[in-house]
């Protein structure tokens, strides 16, 4: 048993974090809402750190490196569809969609797109006009289904869900870091907010939730490479469901701790929260993910000590 990320992966993550933070961090994501051309330097930065050469369908280290890249993308609300790019199919970015109402973050980037539902049923995607002035998911593009394409491999769908969950984790870690800094600095009634036990307990609970998500993300990523393929889909859905549930709870705490400043776009948490929403709602809701897992539980195929 070794629950630590491999040193090479940590080194890659450090380098990627440095590059993507130096690029502008969350502030760049905010500015990109009004100037979408700012995605171009993001693409160049990703290329410079070798992001597009990562083989996330390969061995555990490659997958973990991709996962760390997605985690950092979450931390800076990176205005680029990193997961879709990492899992491109024949040069077309792969998005997970709900075929009844397909929407894709950064669908206006051009190039070919494949949209697949959670069963792997796939279509080419075509995009119309951007939504106007949407605060939640400002880069989200309505799409329509084009011609059917060969089904996407179940493992690709699973890896997409997992890498997206790592992105959620990165956003939550960054939001919590902001809140920790805030309650340490902000004084009320003559003392820092961090001195109030109610605040300390709320942050303890949020911190535990994020720690738990991190461990589940690592374990699930490891299972994608080591466990039987029959388990990959359930493991991935379970991680995404837990990521969404955790995000809703942790972001609620973050806003409560920050007060009004947390709703302002000058604060990272407002941007992180708004930009994260598509990942928390799409391709299906958390409740749909839960119900999707029920047959797995009924078949005693969800891994426990007694499955």
């Amino acid at each position, binding site marked *: *048993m*070794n*629950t*630590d*990320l*491999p040193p090479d992966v940590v080194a890659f993550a450090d380098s990627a974090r440095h590059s993507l933070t130096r690029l502008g961090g969350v502030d760049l994501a905010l500015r990109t809402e009004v100037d979408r051309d700012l995605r171009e330097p993001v693409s160049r930065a990703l290329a410079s750190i070798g992001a597009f050469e990562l083989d996330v369908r390969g061995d*555990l280290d490659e997958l*973990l490196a991709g996962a760390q890249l997605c985690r950092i993308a979450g931390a800076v609300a990176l205005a680029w569809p990193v997961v879709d790019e990492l899992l491109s199919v024949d040069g077309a970015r792969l998005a997970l969609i709900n075929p009844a109402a397909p929407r894709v973050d950064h669908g206006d980037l051009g190039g070919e797109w494949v949209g697949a539902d959670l069963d792997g049923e796939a279509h080419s995607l075509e995009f119309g006009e951007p939504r106007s002035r949407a605060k939640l998911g400002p880069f989200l593009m309505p799409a329509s289904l084009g011609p059917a394409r060969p089904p996407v491999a179940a493992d690709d769908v699973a890896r997409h869900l997992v890498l997206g969950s790592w992105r959620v984790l990165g956003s939550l870690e960054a939001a919590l870091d902001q809140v*920790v800094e805030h*309650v*340490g600095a902000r004084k009320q009634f003559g*003392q820092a907010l*961090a*001195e109030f*036990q109610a605040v*300390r*307990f709320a*942050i*303890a*609970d949020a*911190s*535990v939730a994020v*720690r*738990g*998500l991190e*461990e*589940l993300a*690592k*374990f699930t990523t*490891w*299972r994608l490479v*080591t466990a039987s393929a029959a388990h990959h889909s359930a493991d991935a859905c*379970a991680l995404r*469901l*837990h990521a969404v*549930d955790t995000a809703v709870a942790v972001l609620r705490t973050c806003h409560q701790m920050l007060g009004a400043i947390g709703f302002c776009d000058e604060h990272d948490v407002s941007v992180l929260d708004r930009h994260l929403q598509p990942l928390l709602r799409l391709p299906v809701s958390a*409740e749909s993910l*839960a*119900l999707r*897992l*029920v047959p797995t*539980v*009924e078949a*005693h195929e*969800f*891994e*426990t*000590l*007694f*499955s």
Partner: protein
Amino acid sequence: MDYELGDAAQALRVRLRELIAQEIPPGFLGAFSANPDDLALTQAFCKTLADEGLLCLAWPTEYGGGGGSVWEQTVVREEMWAHHEPRGAQYMGVNWVGPALMRHGTDEQRAKHLPAISAGEVIWCQGFSEPEAGTDLASLRTRAVLDDDGWLISGQKVWTSYALMAQWCVLAACTDPAAKSNERLTLFIVPMDREGIEVRPIASMLGPHHLNEVFLDSVRVTEADVLGKVGAGWKVMRDALAYERVGIARYARCESLLSRLQDALVADGLWDALAPALKSRWVRALISLRVARLLAYKAIAQQNEGIDPAAAAAARIVTTTCDQTVAELLLEAAGAASLDAGPDAPIHGAIDDHWRYAQAATVSSGTIEVQRILVARSVLGSSR
């Protein structure tokens, strides 16, 4: 990165399940019942484990232990708790009294007590909590007054689990009320049949044996009964608690109970009628239990590094809250019959048993508030 527990640990899990299947009846709910046969069953099972070198797997071989890895110890914790702790109250002696004796006991104390613990022949209780001192143990009032023959201990302990079953007690008493708070206490090893000790059981929702009062009236102890040094009780207790950092593997029993109830509901044709919302909670509970297990593994993997004092606290917070979440889920899924107790109730009365005991999960062995304080200290630094 690798989450395999290892071949030895996996083989041990298989062996433990074989032994449990052979010796423990399906409806067993633990030793803490009104039926003395349950205690006898656990005593016999401890002998079996001891004979196979599994009772004190974590101990060094020189003290009669099995020298097992931390992951083998983890498997023992999981399997024992999942199967309603067929070691009975033995884990108290095995998990912390024994290790505390190894580290702080005298040669005579080690020679006298360690063989008996490793053979599964003796039950211990701990006399820590008092009416005025629960989490704040440093403020306990039981006094050990020095005289020419040693000390006379008078006072009252409360919530003392297994006190009626136990032959021995690790008793905390104040030997110097004027000393600094971390130097006031001394631990004494006292036989429960010593003159001046009276145990009164407390009727509770937890069931028999979990809660007792222990009254101490001029109980004679001597230098030979001191565990560690005089005034070092707090240090010995802290060391002892370190052996139990991640706490009980409650997630293991929760996973077992959910699996058993699911099978029972399917067999009775009731599973399909469960509301989708309840099945959704079921799924989420299983995921949370997986998270609890992983946080426990994380803390165990770090236990010799001393890197993150909050890791064990995080594991305990998630595990204990899961215990209560699953308790509610089981009760709701099983319906009205879940309020029944005894072998004819759903899954042999395990739902009623689990719900009652789960109420204490966030209170006993370090409250959830203490765990939150530890996590907050790690994230935010100490408060003033």
